[in-house]
């Protein structure tokens, strides 16, 4: 009964989305206030029904309703409750429902927080988002219905993939999808601007907070994914340039470029066509990512159960949405005009350079991800493009971008003077160079790449810090008088520096030993002694575990005990490694069990990972910067004020100013 209600709710949501996609858009074109005003209730209605469907599916999981095919495939009655709930998005169909729910959520948010927008603009934005909803809801209903019944119902479920039975599943996909999908708002604003022909600084001010919010959440989502694979997969790596990882990273890179570009459009009215194109590209890359993960076109450890028929549907949807947007762009963008002028050296030109580098980086990642497919399609053989390529290509692009990150905030708008910049920045550069020459020795050995990483990180912190101090002095009210958007930028840039330190240190100074350990054997890794104290069997809720005990000794004194496990799950019997990690702010000790070697001995992998947690800590700091910038007084919500309908603006005529 309940799954049928969920199914019906999805159908109703689709109908509402169809109306949402068309009526307000037509209303805006015709100047019909009533049709435009329909956007809000339609958006809220669609969200209500999507949430209803989501609740129905969750209910099916929680009550172990194995007559629903999706539940039977991804759950089990012995699965702990939190994973039964998180399992809702553990497979293809359910994750689509999560996607659609996130989209509904963002649309409703736009509907609620857009009182200050002209009616026709908000109508168009909500319509565009409705169009995307139509695509995903129809995709679900026609090819990937989570509510399909299994007749006769299964007695027991196939269990959730053991790799997913982890707290990571509870937060990573929701955060990631919230970010991915959030770029649809920037996209919708861009399309609305192109359609209406109204693309100016005000438009940028409206669209910027939505973009920053999506970007911040996506940053956290990607960081969570990296952290989860680090501790879950047992090989101590944190980024593999896997196609699905790339699929989330590309929108992030373009999204970063977009935030910077929007800053220019908002302050100086420049970069307008470029900003619009970036907004379209960011969301297009999100959609492309959805396609890549679910179509079977690329192999990935993340790929969902693939089916070329579904791939065709998504590709067709992609073609329509992106093709139409880019056609609209080609047609309308030149009319939008150029915007403010600026000199060869100015904050604008530096930000543009930043954009070129970030977009080139995103383009390179796309090139590397799709190249094997291109060659195969052309019959030119089969190659693999993996981490060696991406690392070789990505780093040289990022180095100048990070260098510019220190310079940009110092450059004046419109025209900056090189001697002045040099004078203000020379101390920051000097401190970076000194740190680069000295710091690596503290870690053990001087290496050029470490020096480069340290140079960049210290440069960013020093340049940012000095700018912050100068600005505080110049602001009445000191620190608390600073605009939040400025503070947010400082925090986010500092976060980047922290990430750089983490990556540099862990890549250069990590240690790994793969050893055979009998009971009582010790191994020295990273200055710590690890003693193997045996393995014993331990039952879990839905698995059998072999739990090892490893004692960490510092100067002969036992300081920590680690328990790596090897689990065999009752239903899906492939063995799973659960690494044991001991973290502190400056290093991780990481131990994973290999295979039993007979006689109580096991093969054990021990890693020493210095500063690895700075990678994710830095990402969190970046997101905090984003959230800080969002709390700027410009964006203070107008929830308190009663809604007063603005006079509808016809094209070409101005309503009387309020």
């Amino acid at each position, binding site marked *: 009964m309940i799954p049928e209600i969920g199914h019906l709710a999805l159908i109703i949501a689709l109908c509402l989305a169809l109306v949402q996609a068309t009526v307000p858009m037509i209303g805006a074109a015709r100047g019909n206030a009533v049709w435009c005003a329909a956007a809000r209730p339609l958006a809220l209605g669609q969200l209500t029904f999507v949430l209803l469907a989501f609740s129905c599916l969750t209910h099916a999981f929680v009550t172990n309703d194995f007559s629903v095919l999706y539940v039977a495939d991804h759950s089990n009655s012995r699965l702990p409750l939190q994973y039964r709930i998180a399992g809702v998005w553990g497979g293809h169909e359910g994750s689509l429902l999560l996607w659609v729910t996130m989209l509904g959520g963002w649309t409703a948010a736009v509907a609620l927080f857009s009182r200050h927008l002209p009616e026709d603009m908000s109508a168009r934005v909500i319509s565009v988002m409705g169009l995307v909803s139509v695509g995903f809801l129809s995709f679900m209903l026609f090819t990937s219905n989570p509510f399909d019944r299994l007749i006769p119902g299964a007695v027991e479920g196939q269990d959730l993939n053991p790799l997913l039975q982890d707290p990571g599943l509870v937060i990573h996909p929701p955060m990631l999808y919230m970010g991915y999908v959030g770029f649809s708002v920037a996209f919708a604003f861009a399309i609305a601007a192109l359609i209406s022909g109204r693309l100016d600084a005000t438009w940028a001010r409206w669209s910027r907070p939505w973009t920053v919010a999506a970007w911040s959440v996506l940053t956290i989502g990607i960081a969570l994914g990296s952290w989860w694979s680090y501790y879950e997969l047992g*090989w101590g*790596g944190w980024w*593999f340039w*896997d196609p699905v990882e790339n699929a989330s990273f590309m929108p992030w890179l373009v999204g970063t470029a977009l935030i910077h570009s929007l800053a220019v459009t908002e302050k100086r009215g420049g970069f307008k066509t470029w900003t619009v194109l970036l907004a379209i590209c960011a969301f297009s890359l999100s959609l492309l990512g959805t396609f890549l993960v679910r179509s079977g076109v690329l*192999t*990935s*450890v993340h790929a969902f159960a693939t089916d070329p028929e579904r791939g065709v549907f998504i590709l067709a949807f992609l073609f329509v949405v992106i093709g139409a947007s880019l056609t609209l762009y080609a047609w309308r963008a030149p009319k939008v005009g*150029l915007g403010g*002028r*600026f000199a*060869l050296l100015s904050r604008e*030109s530096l930000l*543009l*350079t930043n954009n*070129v*580098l970030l*977009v*080139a*980086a995103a*383009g*390179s990642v796309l*090139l*590397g991800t799709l*190249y094997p497919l291109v*060659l195969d399609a052309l019959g*030119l*053989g*089969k*190659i*693999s*493009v*993996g*981490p*060696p*390529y991406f690392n*070789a*290509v990505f780093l*040289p*692009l990022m180095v100048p971008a990070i260098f510019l990150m220190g310079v940009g905030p110092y450059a004046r708008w419109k025209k900056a003077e090189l001697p002045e910049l040099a004078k203000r920045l020379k101390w920051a550069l000097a401190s970076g160079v000194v740190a680069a020459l000295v710091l690596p020795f503290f870690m*053990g050995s001087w290496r050029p790449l470490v020096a480069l990483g340290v140079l960049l990180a210290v440069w960013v912190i020093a340049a940012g810090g000095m700018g912050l101090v100068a600005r505080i002095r110049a602001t009445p009210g000191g620190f608390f008088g600073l605009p939040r958007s400025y503070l947010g930028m400082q925090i986010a840039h500092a976060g980047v520096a922290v990430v750089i330190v983490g990556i540099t240190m862990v890549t250069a100074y990590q240690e790994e*030993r*793969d*050893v*055979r*350990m*009998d*009971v*009582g*054997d*010790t*191994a*020295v890794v*990273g*200055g710590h*002694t690890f*003693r*193997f104290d045996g393995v014993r069997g331990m039952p879990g809720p839905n698995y059998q575990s072999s739990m090892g005990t490893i004692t960490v000794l510092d100067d002969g004194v036992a300081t920590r005990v680690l328990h790596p496990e090897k689990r065999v799950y009752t239903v899906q019997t492939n063995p799973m490694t659960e690494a044991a990690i001991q973290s502190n702010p400056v290093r991780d000790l990481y131990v994973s069990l*290999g295979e039993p070697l007979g006689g109580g001995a096991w*093969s*054990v992998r021990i890693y020493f990972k210095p500063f690895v947690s700075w990678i994710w800590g830095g990402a969190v700091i970046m997101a905090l910067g984003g959230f800080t910038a969002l709390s700027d007084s410009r964006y203070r919500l107008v929830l308190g004020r009663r809604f007063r309908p603005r006079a509808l603006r016809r094209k070409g005529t101005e309503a009387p100013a309020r």
Partner: protein
Amino acid sequence: MRRGALLLAALLAAGLMDTGAAAKDAVPMGGDPAVEARMMGLASELRCLVCQNQTLADSHADLAQDLRQEIRELIASGMTDDQVRDYLVERYGDFVLYRPPWKATTALLWAGPLLLVVAGGVVLGFSLRRRRREALEDDAPLSDEERARLQHLLEDEKGETPP
């Protein structure tokens, strides 16, 4: 801390540390550390053909273990890293390399990023020059005709002749 580690390792190696009667310093899984290091270095840039989303170094698959053993033997027999890679490519194709080889078909792949930056830079350069040209045009003094129009407009506004 690092120096302490070195000292500890040296002492352990010299057997001067007593860590227990039967207990000992754990033996590395691989045989000769030098061969092992080279093998892992190679294997970390090779693709496991069975799981396909792991490196040969990390994969637990049977074929991966076989291939790692094969590589150990090839190294021990005196092959260089390039020769080992060629050996595997002969049997499995370029697919097994995670670092794409430099060939005619991959030229665009390796040159692509640089081309993108250069193209971006060129477009940026043109765009900046165009803005500068337009800026100069706008800042040019008014022509006589434009000045007359300006007078006219000012008169209209104020209803009196300007000084």
